[in-house]
């Protein structure tokens, strides 16, 4: 196990390194985005730009600039934005993280609940009317663009019916849970539902497929031969084995979302989370912030991959030994 973790760690660090180099190269190869010109300010004279360039070390060779940036990001931890000078990147990310976490946690609860319920009900009722119905709803949910759903939800809750049915919906934005738990929840209800819709659809469909596969397994036949009830077979045997797939799926999705994959939902719903931070940084080509966000996101993706491996081992004893 220890060696497994060390191996994972090494490969994770290598992957993160490769990604950081990639991001750095991508964004330095772009014309029209000379950070010195933008830091110096609009229409600064060439002399001022030169002074700024020197003071930010932007006149040094690329590898040095890369190393400097990494040093500021990881060792000194004081990397600052180009667009908002002297705004350190790390605190920005740390401030955005709770917003994203709030969004994703709530949504995850909802989608797990709906997804698992939908998948189990559909699998238990194979061949009946309710199965294709659930699957149809699932496909619809999977096919709805998240941002569009968000906008339509906004349209109905913030505009069309804001004066009637949805008068209780606060204007979009985020309120910290420490400020007011009620406002926190009220602000997040629709973002939660919007984000959860897609994943609930995916999970219901995946779980149903897994369950149907599991129900055709030999061990289910054994369980029947043991004289167990259908409910017990479905829940204790089929579902328990299908959870392995679901949990790994969940781990990866959750990791990606915490890392900012809910970007569109955050942007549309006006939540100042990691996704929005990333998006704004990308829009303004603010390399330090982009780098910070990408590292943060990639960390969670890589971390989620590793956690999923461990979860796998916990859930599936076959992996534990190998």
């Amino acid at each position, binding site marked *: 196990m220890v060696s497994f973790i060390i191996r994972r760690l090494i490969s994770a660090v290598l992957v993160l390194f490769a990604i950081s180099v990639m*991001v750095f190269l991508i964004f330095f190869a772009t*014309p029209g985005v000379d950070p010195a010109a933008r830091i110096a300010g609009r229409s600064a004279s060439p002399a001022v730009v030169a002074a700024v360039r020197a003071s930010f070390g932007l006149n040094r060779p690329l590898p040095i600039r890369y190393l400097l940036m990494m040093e500021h990001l990881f060792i000194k931890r004081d990397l600052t934005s180009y667009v908002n000078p002297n705004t350190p990147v790390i605190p920005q990310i740390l401030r955005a993280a709770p917003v994203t976490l709030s969004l994703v946690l709530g949504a995850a609860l909802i989608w797990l609940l709906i997804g698992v319920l939908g998948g189990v009900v559909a699998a238990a009722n194979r061949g009946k009317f309710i199965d294709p119905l659930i699957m149809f709803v699932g496909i619809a949910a999977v096919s709805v663009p*998240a941002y569009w759903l968000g906008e339509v939800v906004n349209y109905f809750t913030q505009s069309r019916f804001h004066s009637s049915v949805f008068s209780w919906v606060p204007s979009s934005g985020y309120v910290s849970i420490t400020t007011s738990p009620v406002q926190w929840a009220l602000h997040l209800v629709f973002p939660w539902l919007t984000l959860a819709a897609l*994943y609930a659809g995916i999970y219901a469909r995946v779980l149903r497929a897994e369950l149907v596969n599991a129900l055709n397994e030999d061990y289910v036949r054994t369980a029947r031969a043991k004289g167990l009830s259908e409910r017990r077979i479905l829940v204790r045997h089929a579902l328990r084995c299908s959870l392995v797939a679901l949990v790994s799926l969940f781990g990866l999705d959750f990791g990606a979302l915490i890392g900012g994959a809910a970007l569109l939902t955050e942007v549309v719903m006006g939540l100042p989370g990691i996704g929005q931070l990333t998006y704004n940084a*990308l*829009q303004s080509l603010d390399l330090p912030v982009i780098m910070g966000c990408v590292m943060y996101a990639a960390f969670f993706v890589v971390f989620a991959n590793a956690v999923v491996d461990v979860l796998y081992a916990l859930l599936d004893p076959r992996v534990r030994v190998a």
Partner: protein
Amino acid sequence: MAALGVVLFVVTACLLAPVYAHDLAHVDAFTSNLNGTIRLNGRTVSVLQANTQGLGFGVTPIGPTWHFTNYFLGADNQGRDVFARLLYGGRATLLIGSTSAIICCLVATVLGLAAGYFGGVIDWVVSRVFDIVWAFPIYLLAISLSVILLTSGLNIGPLHIGAGSLLLPILIIAMVFVPYVGRPLRGIVLSLKEREFVQAAIGSGASDWHIITKEILPNVAPTIIVFLPLMVAFNMLTESALSFLSIGVQPPNASWGTIINDGLGLLYTRPWVAIAPGIGIVLTAGALNVLGDGVRDAFDPKARLRGSI
């Protein structure tokens, strides 16, 4: 079957966009019509209507006329026919979705075959690239590439792709999803390589080329075919998301995503501009998903594609 019907219907309707625009509605979906007027119920009406109430600020495009021959879904802020744009936009969305899916599958197949079959250094390199792209959050990669390429265009040797070209979103989306197809394909190739019929071919002295093209490829093909409709649906969604963020299809070209984006500015006054293309996406992507399920059932019950933006 119904799903196939829906897909065919949408494709046909979108392909017929010029017919509708030029012969039925007599509009150009890509030219601003800020001073335009139409005849509606016997009256001449401006396509863009200045506000006459209160302080008189604001100009609002005409809403849905529900007359199929003109401004069926109303106009956008440039005074262009939303319905005509919807059809043209569908062309772009479908084109990007399908072409990028095909390119993605092609590249993934080549890489997956090379990595899985030859192993060694090739496998190591390809797998590491897959690893990195895999760990690079997909939305971030797509958006980064889009932002950059839209600024500079793409120059590879003599090949120059302008920033407004549809090829850019196609290539970006295709590249970003390569590992999602390539990885499972590599696995399939690895297991196929150990299959006895491949061993038999080696045993009779077959060349690598023979084995790849005659023995392995035909067995990988069904998986790719299963992936395709799902990929198309998924790429459509990705395209529309990028376009929605203004980093996909560039104006005045339209895709469903850009129309939704246009429509956002009109959500309070003319919600149909944003809602209609969304329905188009849901309908088409949904039908493709159903179709994909059908194809999967027919070919390969185990394939699954995932990822999300």
